[in-house]
Each structure stands twice: as C-alpha cells, then as structure tokens.
C-alpha cells in the first residue's frame, strides 16, 4: 500500500490522533504558560530566586522525555495524566526563563514613572511590566510549543493520546506492510501541526503585542 493510500484508508484514526495531539500540546502549553509566568513574576525581583527557577526548570529539561514519563507512571498512572504532567514540566523552562529576562529587561525609568504616577504594584505589573515583557514571553511559548510537539509523541509510550500512537505502532510492527507508513504518517502529522501552531503564534503576536513596541 502506498503512503497516501494508507492515509486515505486510515484518515479517521489519523484525524483523531492529530486532534488529540494538538489538544494535548495546546492545553499543556496553556498550563505551562500560566505557571511559567507566575513563577517568573514571583522570581524576577530576586537574584537567587530567578537563578533557582531557571536552574530547576533547566534541569528538568535534561531528563530524557521517555525516562520522565516512565518515572511518572508509577506516580500518576497510565494515560492522560503522565502526558499532561510531562508536557507541562517541559514547557515551563522557556517560558520561565523568558518571563524573567523580559520582566527584568523593563527600563527602570519606566518603573519609576509608573510608581511616580501612582500605579499600585499590581497595576504596574499588569499594565506596564507584563505587556512590555510579553514579546519575549511569547517567543518562549513558541519555542516550548515546538519542543512539546515532539515530546508529546513519546507520551504514547504511557498510553497517552496523540500521533505518537501511530509512530509506536509502526515501530512495534517494523517489517510489516504498513509499519513505515504509520511512522511516516505520525511524523508528518506532527510536522504539519508544528507549522500550523507557529503560524497561529505569529497571528497571536500581531494581535497581542502593542504596535508601539512591535519590532
């Protein structure tokens, strides 16, 4: 069976896997963004807290994804849970690091001006610091998403959702008629998804980054 023939015959399953893959990455990324920005906000003012946050998240990233998921199975069980935990943890690093860099990079004169015109701590953060740090944070999110696309495939190892199932099935039945097609379909799906997500981020950037600071 040729590749496209295979895709045609299995399009229902492939579509489900693709949607689940995208959904997993998207939701975990949303979670990682929220957590990452919170950690960044909590840590950026202090030298050591910032280093600690960056170092911890960086260390997480050095653990091979397969190993992390394997380690998570006894703790959270099989299926969706280890996928979500692993993806969120991996997604944190770029967001945390860029949030800290972005927040620290805000011109101190502007902070002074914000204080000087009577903005409260919260107002300063929400209306001045985060909007100005947003472009680097968004870049972090973009990088993290690309990374999660690949890592999400490994989640199938723990019976997680997504295109990884195609790839694992193919690898498990190497030598059989459709093995290569399965691996290829899973991989291609991930690549296409990654490109679509990236395009979405470009659009998001145009919508959310003020024209006043857009490069």
């Amino acid at each position, binding site marked *: 069976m040729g590749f496209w023939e295979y895709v045609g015959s299995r399009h229902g399953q492939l579509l489900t896997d693709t949607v689940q893959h995208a959904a997993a990455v998207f939701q975990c990324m949303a979670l990682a963004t929220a957590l990452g920005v919170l950690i960044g906000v909590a840590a950026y003012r202090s030298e050591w807290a910032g280093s600690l946050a960056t170092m911890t998240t960086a260390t997480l990233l050095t653990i091979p994804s397969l190993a992390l998921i394997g380690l998570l199975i006894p703790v959270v069980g099989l299926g969706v849970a280890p996928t979500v935990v692993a993806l969120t943890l991996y997604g944190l690093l770029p967001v945390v690091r860029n949030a800290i860099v972005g927040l620290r990079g805000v011109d101190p004169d502007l902070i002074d001006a914000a204080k*000087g*015109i009577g903005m409260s701590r919260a107002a300063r953060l929400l209306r001045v610091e985060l909007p100005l740090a947003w472009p680097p944070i968004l870049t972090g999110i973009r990088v993290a998403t690309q990374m999660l696309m690949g890592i999400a495939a490994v989640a199938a190892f723990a019976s997680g959702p997504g295109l990884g199932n195609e790839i694992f099935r193919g690898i498990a039945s190497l030598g059989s008629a459709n093995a290569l097609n399965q691996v290829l379909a899973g991989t291609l799906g991930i690549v296409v998804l990654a490109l679509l997500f990236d395009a979405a981020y470009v659009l998001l950037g145009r919508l959310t980054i*003020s024209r*006043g600071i857009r490069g």
Partner: protein
Amino acid sequence: MAEQPGEQPYGNGPRAREAAARPAGSVGAAIRLEHLTKVYPGGAGPAVDDVSMEIGAGETVVLVGPSGCGKSTTLKMINRLIEPTSGRIRIGDEDVTGIDPVRLRRKVGYAIQASGLFPHMTVAQNVALVPRMAGWSAARTRERVEEMLGLVGLDPGEFRHRYPRQLSGGQQQRVGVARALAADPPVLLMDEPFGAVDPVTRDHLQDELLRLQRELRKTIVFVTHDFDEAIKLGDRIAVLRERSRLAQFDTPEAILTHPADAFVAGFVGSGAALKRLHLARVRDVPVADVPTAHLGDPPEAIAGLLRDGGTGAVLLLDGDRRPHTWLRRGDRPPAPPPAAPAGTPVTGTVPRDATLRDALEAVLTDPAGRVAVTGPRGEYTGVLDLATLRGTVQALLAADRAEALAHQRALRGAHGAGAGTAQEGPGGPGGAA
C-alpha cells in the same frame, strides 16, 4: 521690583507676579520638607543630609546643583519614590511621610527626563492612565485627554492615536507633562524634564511651561543642572551643594546679583557674565577710536595715517561716513577711484543699541577681533575690540559683587539667618574671583 500684595506667601517671583486670574482646577499646595535625610544602603555618607525647605503654594522652585549632589534623591523623596531615612514631608496640611505612597502619588504629578512614556500605550492611553486610576468615567477621561493635549500644544486629532516612538523628543516631553497634569494634582515634580531635547526645543518647552504655570498655578519642584533654565523658570532657585545642602535659596534676581558665597558665585559664574552682556548695551561702553579716512582721500595721506596712526590700521569711510574698508599696514593704499580699493571690506558692524552680547559675537567672528560701531544712520562712531569688552564686563561684575556684599551685610544686619535663605550662613564671598 515693586511687589504686589501676595496672596501666596512665597509667590513673589516674576512668574507668580505675572499670574492673572485664579485658575479653574486645583491650585498648588505648599510643600514642607523637614530635616529630610537619605542614606543609601552601602553609601559612604548620606546622599541627602538634613534638608529643610518650604515651598509656597503655587510657587515654582528649581533645584540646581552639580551632578550627583542629590537633586533627584531630594525630589523623589517628595513623592516617596525614595523613602527618606529620616525627616518629614508635608503637603498642604497633611503629613504624608507615613501615608500610602500610592495615595500620595495621585496628588503629585511626576514628569522625568526622556518623558517616561509607556511605549506600548498610545498618547491618549498614557495621558488617560492617572484619571482612569482615579476612577474617572471613560467619557470624562476622554474629554480630559483632549484638554491636556491641547494644553501642551499637541493637536489631539493628530496625536491621540500615536505611539511614543512615533513622536519627536520634544513631543514626548509634552505628552509626559500632559500625563503628569492629567488628574489635576496640586503638586508637580519634574526631574530634568527637558534635559534630552535640543536647545531650541528646550527653550520652546520652557516657554510653554511658563505659560501653563501662569494658568494653572501648581506648586512645581523642578530639577535641572542648567542654571539658565533655573533662572528662566524659577520663582525661587535652590542652589544645592553636595549632599543636597542648601547653598542659597532665593529669587533668580537675588542669586544673580547677590550670590551668597563663593560656591553659588562659581555656579552662577559664566552665566552671570553672559547675562551681564545681555543687559548692557554698546552705547554704555567706551568705544575706541581708529584713524579714519575717506575713500576718495589721496593715497599719500592714507599711507601717512597708516604709518603714523599708532594702531596699524585705518578705517576707510564712504561718502555717508559709513565704515567701508579696513586697511592694515602693508596693505597697498588705494588707487584713486574708480579702481577697487585694497584692504578688507567691512562685513559686519554693530549699532550702538546692540547688546554687548551681540557685540561680542561680532568681535569674535571678525578676523581682526574688532568691530566698528555705528550710529542711527549707519555712520561710524567708534570701534569695539575684545580687550575693551572684557574690561567692561569685568568692571560690571565687580560692581555687582560690591553690591552683593553690601546687600548681604544689610541682610545679616536685618534678620540674622533669615527665613528661606541658606542653611549654612553665607560664607565670605571673597573667593568669588
């Protein structure tokens, strides 16, 4: 120097005097700094050491002093961007040393160098920030934004939707001032707000601020290290030395003519001399004479003048006695007309009504360092050179200094350490050479 019966205790400077009607918005509130001290952690000594100052409601006080003397630190303690180590701050009747700083800052406008505009917000959003925080309705805020932009000379229709990076430096400064004034605070703090723009624009912005202040009568504390700016804007000027200690706190006129000590005199220094040049006119100055001859005079006579004249130069006048050509020793005496005369044609003259500043300009640009002075119809009346100018200015300054001394003796005799003057008694001004 006749003073009006002042409704403001300190509003006796030239600017306050010009103020006409009472403005509609909130007028200034008096500021009282009591023994303010700031010690930065790790600093060798206090950056601001025991400063006490009273600033009247509606008054513009300019803090000037050398770089690093603590001007910004002092200013930022007024809105507690920097918390004082000790001392108290009062605005109006309220002791604001301990209140919520956010509440304090709503009453105190703040404008800084490079405008401090938020780059991700439009001009309108920047200006609207404070009114919105103060809980104004959207409609009232919008109206206020238009009003403020108009007030600082920016067309709302054109500028409202621009981002700060789409503005020139001067326009950004205007928006910065508009933002600081938007919620109508009684007090306005300005830290070198015009420091980053070119001199022409700065002059413009200063004029604008003066006009605004005539309308608004805010209490303004303005920091600069440009003494000319201080003279132009201040009802009173506080000259600060290191650690923000008050060297002199007085009207610009008084500081110019009666500097309290050598430090102030040194700080006023060149400014005073140039200022003097602006105030004196050529007709008040003794001009020198040079040998003159007429264009048609016989060459032998002119040659004789050149040889025996003593100055080494002869000025040739035309038929109306207007300066025409400079002849120097070595120049060939002119052939009889119509041949073109030798020598250097006179390019610039100064009328007797010109200021000494203009005369100095002409002398400095003249190749021979002297300039012919002319009467009402352009006729020659004399010559001014650098040595004469310098002598004149030095005489004027010496007279000023003598007057200052006398004034200080009178002051000391009248009321010892008078209110609002220097903390450190006026040291001997003898060093002001």
